[in-house]
């Protein structure tokens, strides 16, 4: 592809689209004017052809830097704000990083990276940048242990699902997400905001859920995305009553019927969809009929260029939106020989639909019988008094492991013993005996990871 045909993020922006902004809890930056500005102090040309580590702590500055660097650098590795400093050297070597863009330049002077460029809020630039090349987008997997894997995407692959969905009906949307935009789920929403001609409202570290919801309402957010865990927390807040989005999206975890129904009650006029996506497999599909799981007819066909198949109970995906490869010395293959990506997510066929049952790596073995914690949580969450729950393994001298559950109640003043009996009764009605929690504990809250998912490690 010649440079003339290459499209970068800046090519979706321009002065003809008025009133576009990107904001966090402190700053509002105009996207309408952004092409005449630089957040890199006019040093963008130094990054031409480089492999850039984008390591800004601030999410707003990261987003603005992505707009500026895309189409100029050879590679751009998006570092999440919680990147473990012990992993930096390995990631720099594997991604062949030779420049870092950061809002804390002093911290990077001794890191041995040749070029350190300071990033800040945008200021007028002397010359407008022009797209030079298709920049390779590098992201980190959100695994909980060891050095994260580096995954390589193109902007075309990252935006494939957005382009396929077509333009938003009616007024340009104002998008928001509970995710961090340096993770795949959040980046999708940032890109949707840029491509749609609309605006973007970022999350703000340290903000309470009530403050966040109030800000979303004040900024006129129309479209919003988060994990089911994010949404369960939001549904617990009274501040949700002031917020009325047109479109609500869930992804990143299994959307069970209880959370879909809860959102329908909270936002009766909104469209509610749950999407399937992962850093490696890209955006698979979105389901908008308000039901958990997805229609069986989606397996085996190639709608929108996405082909899905089920092997040994696990979902595999082949499409132009999957990542290109893992990056680095000795990196594993990301696709099989047919081009399919193993999602590691297990599905079960029930009725007319496939239902996600859990991660292949998260299976609990109770005396030789397999249990997915997610299938137990779906049953527990179906109780009207339950806000969220976590099923987990506990070692047992008799069966090796048993399943126990931590449950957050919607109203902490409820009669726990009565609800415990009702939860157990619901579990007995729909789960095999080895899947019924041996112990149910009521807890005030459950930890959510930086990626917005229920923390599954033992605490």
């Amino acid at each position, binding site marked *: 592809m010649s440079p003339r045909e290459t499209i970068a993020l800046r090519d979706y922006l321009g002065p003809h689209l008025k009133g576009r902004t990107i904001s966090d809890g402190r700053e509002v930056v105009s996207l309408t004017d952004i092409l005449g500005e630089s957040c890199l102090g006019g040093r963008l040309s130094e990054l031409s052809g480089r492999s850039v580590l984008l390591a800004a702590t601030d999410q707003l500055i990261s987003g603005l830097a992505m707009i500026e660097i895309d189409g100029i650098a050879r590679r751009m590795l998006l570092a999440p704000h919680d990147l473990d400093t012990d992993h930096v050297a390995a990631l720099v070597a594997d991604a062949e990083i030779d420049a870092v863009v950061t809002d804390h330049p002093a911290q990077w002077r001794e890191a041995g990276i040749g070029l350190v460029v300071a990033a800040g809020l945008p200021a007028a630039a002397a010359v407008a940048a022009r797209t030079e090349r298709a920049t390779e987008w590098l992201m980190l997997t959100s695994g909980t242990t060891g050095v994260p894997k580096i995954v390589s995407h193109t902007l075309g692959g990252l935006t494939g699902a957005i382009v396929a969905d077509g333009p938003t009906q009616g007024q340009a949307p104002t998008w928001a997400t509970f995710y961090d935009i340096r993770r795949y789920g959040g980046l999708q929403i940032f890109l949707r905001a840029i491509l749609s001609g609309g605006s973007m409202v970022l999350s703000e570290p340290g903000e309470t859920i009530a403050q966040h919801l109030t800000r979303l309402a004040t900024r006129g957010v129309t479209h919003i995305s988060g994990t089911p865990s994010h949404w369960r927390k939001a549904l617990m807040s009274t501040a949700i009553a002031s917020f009325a989005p047109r479109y609500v999206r869930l992804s990143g975890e299994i959307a069970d019927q209880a959370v879909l129904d809860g959102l329908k009650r909270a936002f009766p006029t909104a469209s509610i969809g749950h999407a399937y996506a992962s850093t490696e497999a890209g955006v698979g599909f979105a389901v908008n009929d308000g039901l958990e799981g997805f229609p069986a007819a989606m397996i085996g066909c190639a709608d929108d260029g996405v082909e899905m198949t089920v092997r040994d109970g696990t979902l595999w995906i082949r499409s132009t939106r999957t990542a290109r490869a893992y990056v680095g010395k000795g990196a594993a293959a990301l696709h099989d020989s047919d081009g399919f990506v193993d999602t590691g997510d297990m599905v079960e066929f029930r009725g007319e639909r496939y239902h996600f049952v859990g991660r292949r790596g998260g299976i609990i073995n*109770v*005396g030789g019988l397999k249990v997915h914690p997610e299938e137990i949580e779906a049953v527990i969450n179906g109780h009207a008094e339950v806000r969220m729950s976590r099923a987990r393994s*506990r*070692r*047992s*001298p*008799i*069966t090796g492991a*048993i399943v*126990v559950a931590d449950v957050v109640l919607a109203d902490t003043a409820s009669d726990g013993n009565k609800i415990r009996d009702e939860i*157990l009764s619901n579990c*007995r009605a729909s789960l095999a*005996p*080895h899947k*019924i929690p*041996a*112990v149910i504990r009521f807890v005030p809250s459950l930890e959510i990871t930086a990626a917005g998912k229920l923390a599954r490690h033992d605490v």
Partner: protein
Amino acid sequence: MSVRLRIFAAMRQIAVEQGVTLPPLDNDLRLHETGFDSLGFAILVARLEDDLGIDPFTMSEDVAFPLTIGDFVRAYEHVPA
């Protein structure tokens, strides 16, 4: 409530949940005659650990799993809490 009575209360609760009819609980009753399967005992041991703060079968590797109700109760009574 004594350790013994707490164990019996937990067993009766699990019996109700599992639809098991417990025979009269006495020291000579063999565990396999209680009607509990291994899952039932796994649940019992987990709940007793929460109630009594000990799991005698995990704390020491050379504790053999008991054969009778009397042995089972003694395993809990003989471990310092």
